[in-house]
């Protein structure tokens, strides 16, 4: 497995096959005397904003706080990765996860209030 080619920026799918987001970052754990270990996949606006610059990361965190989102980034234990062929599939329920916080907020506060939204 090559982390950047096979994992980073790929589509993430949850247990229910729903789209979770993209793999915005990969968190490595440094260990004394041992090679580093891939600990988490990270996703969320703060993570991808950080890749452009620290200032954007701060803006993303502030924006999330403004809308009362608990977390601007979300980590998935690397042990939950089931498959990474076409998409990265993880053993996580997408819908209740923090990755869907904005989706839920927009659905409940805006979309559901519009006519014919079902």
């Amino acid at each position, binding site marked *: 497995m090559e982390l950047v080619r096979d994992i980073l*920026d790929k589509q993430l799918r949850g247990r229910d096959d729903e789209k979770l987001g993209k793999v915005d970052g990969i968190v490595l754990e440094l260990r004394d005397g041992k090679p580093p270990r891939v600990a988490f996949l990270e996703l969320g606006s703060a993570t*991808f904003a950080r890749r452009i610059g620290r200032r954007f990361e701060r803006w993303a965190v502030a924006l999330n706080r403004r809308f009362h989102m608990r977390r601007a980034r979300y980590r998935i234990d690397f042990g939950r990765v089931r498959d990474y062929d*076409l998409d990265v599939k993880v053993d996580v329920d997408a819908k209740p996860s923090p990755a869907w916080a904005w989706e839920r907020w927009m659905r409940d506060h805006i979309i559901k209030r*519009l006519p*014919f939204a*079902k």
Partner: protein
Amino acid sequence: MKRKDLLNLTLGIITSIGGFLEVGSMATSAAAGADFGYKLLWVIVFSTLCLIFLIEMSGRLAAVSKRALADAVRERFGFVFTVIPRLLEVLVNLLVIAAEIGGVCLALKIITGVPVAVWAIPVGLVLWIVVWVGTLEWIENTTAILGLMTIAFVIAAWKLHPDPHEVLRGLIPSRSPHDAARFWFIAVSIAGSTISPYMFHFYSSGAIEEEWDEKSLTSNRMTAILGMGFGCLMSIGVLIVSAVVFAPKGIHVDSYEQLAVVLSPALGRWGFPLFVGSLAVCCFGAAVEIALATSYLLGQTFGWNWSENSEPTKGARFALTYTAVIFGGALIMTTGLDPLKLTMFSMALTAVILPTVIMPFLLLVNDEHYVGEHRSGWIGNTVVFIVVLVASIIAIVAIPLELAGGS
């Protein structure tokens, strides 16, 4: 090929023909014909050739790699590289959808006399309702079949008996007979209106939604060649009609209202309703595609659920994006901006950003990791590379000159 496949293929081709002409191609071809006769015909042909290759490539990329364009670009080139091209695309899409909404409003203005700015929000609302409740297939087929009305331009061109030698001569690349800045500005606007990035997102996302696979490659190729090829005839029709009707009288097309009579010499009393109908339907169809394409490209860049075929509550961010784009575009038109100038400008701007969208795309369709053995041939690669690069460079030079010229 089974009967059902053949039917789908035919429908695909008809959809492409009907969907080819939109406010951009109409305005740029008409301006070209009025100002320079047949001299810019070759630009339509070269741009269409490039478009055929690109549409085939975006369908092939989706069918083989199972990824839509924006998905594959983010995966292959990473987030940082993706941000600027996608941001530029969203901005250009906003201008182009404003121009398309402006086109529908103009058609209504021509009939009712009520100004464009007043129509903008109601038109935006109808557009939004169509995207909100419609399914992809229904939207595509309806607007495209109504879009076949644009054949009127080809019939009119035929009935006006243009000089065949002059028409053929127009197919050979030539320099400007006068006013070089204007000539090249219109040339790149034609390229920008023909090679629209939103079409590739729309087409490749549609291929994923319809679950294409390697068996779809033949029909993909035929749709690209026949659909875009015949579609190009509509643009040529507009240019010829405009060249015959306006050029000898020295009329420059300064507004869409002038264009309203363009079909009348050839088609008599049918000319006016057919022009107004074509303008409204084409612009409406293109606006739908742009709104959805913007949702697709953001959805694929950020990994949201994206599907036009599911209910808005199942893809809230997807639905909210097209809602914002539609009403953003409508708001731009309420400012009273001249729709024709906006169209010409946004088409030239499209040409400027083309390399940022097309070059990564070109690398992807040559990457074995994505398309396996179905890599692009050298002819397609060369044509696309040269046309896109040249169009962009000319656009960068021509836009300031056109703005300085005070068109």
